[in-house]
């Protein structure tokens, strides 16, 4: 399985990564190697095997419904790129 330039551009768009045209051929080559590696899995017979998400077979532990957090906006927003009146600012969101 190989990825075309169109595939790579689509993936980059989904992942919100700007790709320069100059990067694409190198990536395509590296992906050929990576896909060669992971395509080894296709040959494995896994009929009847359940997928495993976590090695340890555990269940969710739940929290009680208690408010434990206080307002720390000033602290959290001290590391924000752009804020005004307590809001995070971004280029206009169009709906």
């Amino acid at each position, binding site marked *: 399985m190989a990825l075309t330039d169109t595939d790579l551009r689509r993936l980059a768009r989904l992942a919100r990564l700007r790709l320069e045209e100059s990067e694409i051929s190198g990536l395509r080559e*590296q992906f050929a190697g*990576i896909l060669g590696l992971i395509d080894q899995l296709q040959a494995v017979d896994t009929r009847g095997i359940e997928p495993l998400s976590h090695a340890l077979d555990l269940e969710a532990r739940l929290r009680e419904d208690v408010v434990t957090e206080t307002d720390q906006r000033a602290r959290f927003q001290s590391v924000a790129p752009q804020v005004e009146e307590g809001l995070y600012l971004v280029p206009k969101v169009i709906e």
Partner: protein
Amino acid sequence: MDLANTSLRQLASALHERRISSRELTQAYLERIGRLDGQLGAFITVDPDKTLSQADAADARIARGEAGPLTGIPIAHKDIFCTEGWLTTCGSRMLSNFVSPYDAHVIEKFAAAGALILGKTNMDEFAMGSSNETSHFGPVKNPWNLAKVPGGSSGGSAAAVAARLAPAATATDTGGSIRQPAALCGVSGIKPTYGLVSRYGMIAYASSLDQGGVIAPSAEDLGLVLNTMVGFDTRDSTSIDRPAEDYTAALGQPLKGLRIGLPREYFSGGVSPDVARAIDAALEVYDRLGAERVEVSLPHSQLSVPVYYVLAPAEASSNLSRYDGVRYGHRAAQYGDLNDMYERTRAEGFGAEVKRRILTGTYVLSRGYYDAYYLQAQRVRRLIVNDFREAFARCDVIMGPASPTVAFGFGEKTSDPVQMYLSDIFTISVNLAGLPGLSIPAGFGASGLPVGLQLIGNYFSEGRLLQAAHGYQQATDWHRQVPDMARA
């Protein structure tokens, strides 16, 4: 005090007995860092004022007689652990300006124990790498040979401990990121059972595989640090609630009758001859200590690399979506609309390896490919776990090389990602199975570079693993060897 030849336990006694103050000890380490780290690049951030004020607080605590085993000990932290008021970069340009507003659970635990933050260590960007060449802050050099890589992703922690710039360092291991650099730098490193160390505040790479651990010169030191680092945390849903355990309790007990499983697959080619020789010699030491060899098989272990390079990038592609330039971290200086802001921010903020893994993960999760890659990888993951279950029915600990080669040169594997990925062939399956694993120095291979022996245990058998490692270290002195630069 000769910091190059003093173990963490000895430092702790010296502090306890007031033969040295925490301030003096810390100053000595800071002096070493100032003098030697320019060649190594093991640290991203050192903040002597902050560290020394913590040392003074520790000294006061010792004076009050309230000291615990780690009180006053400076510990270096991989820059993946959020530390309040400290730059926490994860080795990335994306977080190159991120001063964490909160502490990771692990950092809280060390603070409560009275340990100090000595600095934040360099690492592969977002823990993605096996050579520490992907860090935005430059590569870390291997203290044994500055032309060689220290391994990764916890290369800074391993190099710092190897050069004795820190008595111990925290690290994380998703596919071998503690054990492989520990092996390449000639130090000891442990990755506990998944869930023992809280992941809260440990910046996520692949959530179902990430686990915090320790790098230190010896197994005994690992146990001492682990005693503080392990612990249940309600803020991590995958944290395991178990009674506290003293990981040093079994140290010194004899190894007679210990059943050592030797997986056929780890000893059938693919290992460079110098590494194979050192591992054989290490196993002979265990023979002499009365352990028994058992041949076991991990038939699916060859598939662990492809499974890992589906699952880890898949989780990473999602975990790294939060870096969007909106609430913290890097934002592109120039952009047009919202999508352009996202795309430029992320293209600038992430390095090439991180982007490759995000794209790989996006691909294996995308419509039409999910079943063939992601679900299939999860199924094979179960086969790998089953292999270990069967092996541990027949042995107490599995041994083999931690890395197929000794440290390689800079740039040797960067052009071919797959070659780089294969350097974790012996460590990755342990993460997929969630098992504890450690690496200890076991002599030297080609060009006088260290070789690491990997010990893999069953779930929650950290105490036994450390006992096995300690027994070996009582019979050998590889773990006391330090590179020339560290003696300076």
